[in-house]
């Protein structure tokens, strides 16, 4: 049997929270409980679905706390913006702490930004805060912007800004490279990692910043 206590079987989730099967499946359909959290594993009686324990319990607690005051579609925007990227936005990215003033040199447009765009900016801004040059920050933004689907299942994904040293005919220079990769990461010996961001953390920080008012 599984002794991994970071995971919780489905039946225990229902017992611990008191929700019904109807609710669990409805919330899954809406994207309130991300697909990626449903992990099928073999047990000695057959296949069983497990969830990451802390995440699922926290999410259900949030849903139960907020569901009487907000329609479910609104909850998706608050709790799981990655499920409805087009429906969540913010007109002033620099006002969000995960982006902040470091995001100023990274903006490519004005006005409304979608959730994936905000996450891309937050990645770039965080890279700048950790010592990346503005041009390198923009490289990170471009990379994440081009891959909005990665935000739906960001667990284990790292956004890496590296430098590769190149020497040709006596001229040595360093070229920046931005990579979205799954941990553990392997780069060749000529590369030096300048900044490494946990994409899941950034996604959570942006979610928190967006939903801050409502969550209190």
């Amino acid at each position, binding site marked *: 049997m599984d002794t991994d206590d970071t995971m919780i079987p489905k039946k225990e989730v229902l017992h611990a929270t008191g929700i019904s099967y109807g609710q669990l499946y*409805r919330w899954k*359909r809406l994207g309130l409980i991300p697909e990626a959290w449903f992990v099928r594993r073999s047990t000695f009686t057959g296949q069983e679905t497990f969830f990451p324990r802390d995440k699922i319990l926290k999410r259900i607690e949030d849903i139960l706390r907020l569901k009487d005051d907000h329609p479910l579609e609104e909850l998706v925007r608050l709790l799981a913006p990655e499920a409805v990227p087009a429906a969540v936005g913010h007109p002033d990215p620099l006002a969000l702490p995960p982006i902040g003033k470091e995001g100023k040199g990274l903006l490519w447009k004005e006005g409304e930004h979608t959730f994936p765009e905000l996450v891309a900016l937050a990645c770039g801004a965080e890279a700048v805060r950790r010592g990346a040059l503005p041009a390198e920050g923009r490289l990170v933004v471009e990379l994440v912007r081009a891959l909005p689907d990665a935000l739906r299942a960001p667990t284990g994904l790292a956004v890496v800004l590296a430098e590769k040293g190149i020497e040709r005919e006596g001229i040595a220079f360093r070229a920046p490279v931005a990579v979205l990769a799954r941990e553990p990461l392997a780069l060749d010996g000529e590369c030096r990692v300048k900044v490494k961001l946990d994409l899941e953390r950034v996604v959570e920080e942006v979610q928190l910043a967006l939903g801050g008012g409502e969550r209190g």
Partner: protein
Amino acid sequence: MAERNIAISGAGRIEGGRYGTVKIAGSGKVAGDLEAEEFRSSGSAKVEGDLKAGRFESAGSFRCEGSAEIGEGEAAGSFRVKGLVRTQELKLAGSAAAQGIRGGYLRATGSLAVAENVEVERFWMTGVFGIGGLLSADRVEVELEGPSRAREIGGEKISVRASPRGLGSFFIFALRLVFDKEPVQKLVVDTVEGDEVELEATEARLVRGGKVKVGLGCRIGRVEYSESLEVAPGAKVEEEVKG
């Protein structure tokens, strides 16, 4: 601004793009992605990309090589979508296949083959189906007319009934021709989970629910229930657990 309308009668091919109404009578092909307020076809239609249609009607054969987003639609005959179908309301009669279906209301009569998940608010099926992944809906209502299967079924209310025989349904007729015997009305599924579950002619490893009724022709490995369990005489439940 109103988008332009287009009609094919006879045989024809149009470029993808945005249209008001697309009407096909005869045989029509659409090259590339198509977005239309209304899509109507009788005969044979093929979209060689993604389809987005507010209103959809097809009689005869419809094929889509990409994914289909349908506001409200009806298809009679053959309906095949290679990718995912998203819909608010879709009625399918005849033979239907897709990679996955998501949305509001799905009514299917005949046969339905889905490689991955069907996740809708309401699922009402009469006929035979094969679903490779999860079938989930607030309300799942199935009238079985032949051998069917799904990996998992989950929702609020789940009801599976064996349809009364001898109604002369086309599918029973076809199955008779192919197998030269009465089709077996049986659903094979690994797990069924619902707050209210009523089953007939179902073979499952595990059934979990609040109120569970196990009816005629069922063979269930284990039932876990929280409120009540009824097992019809002749139905087989190997293990019952309350809690």
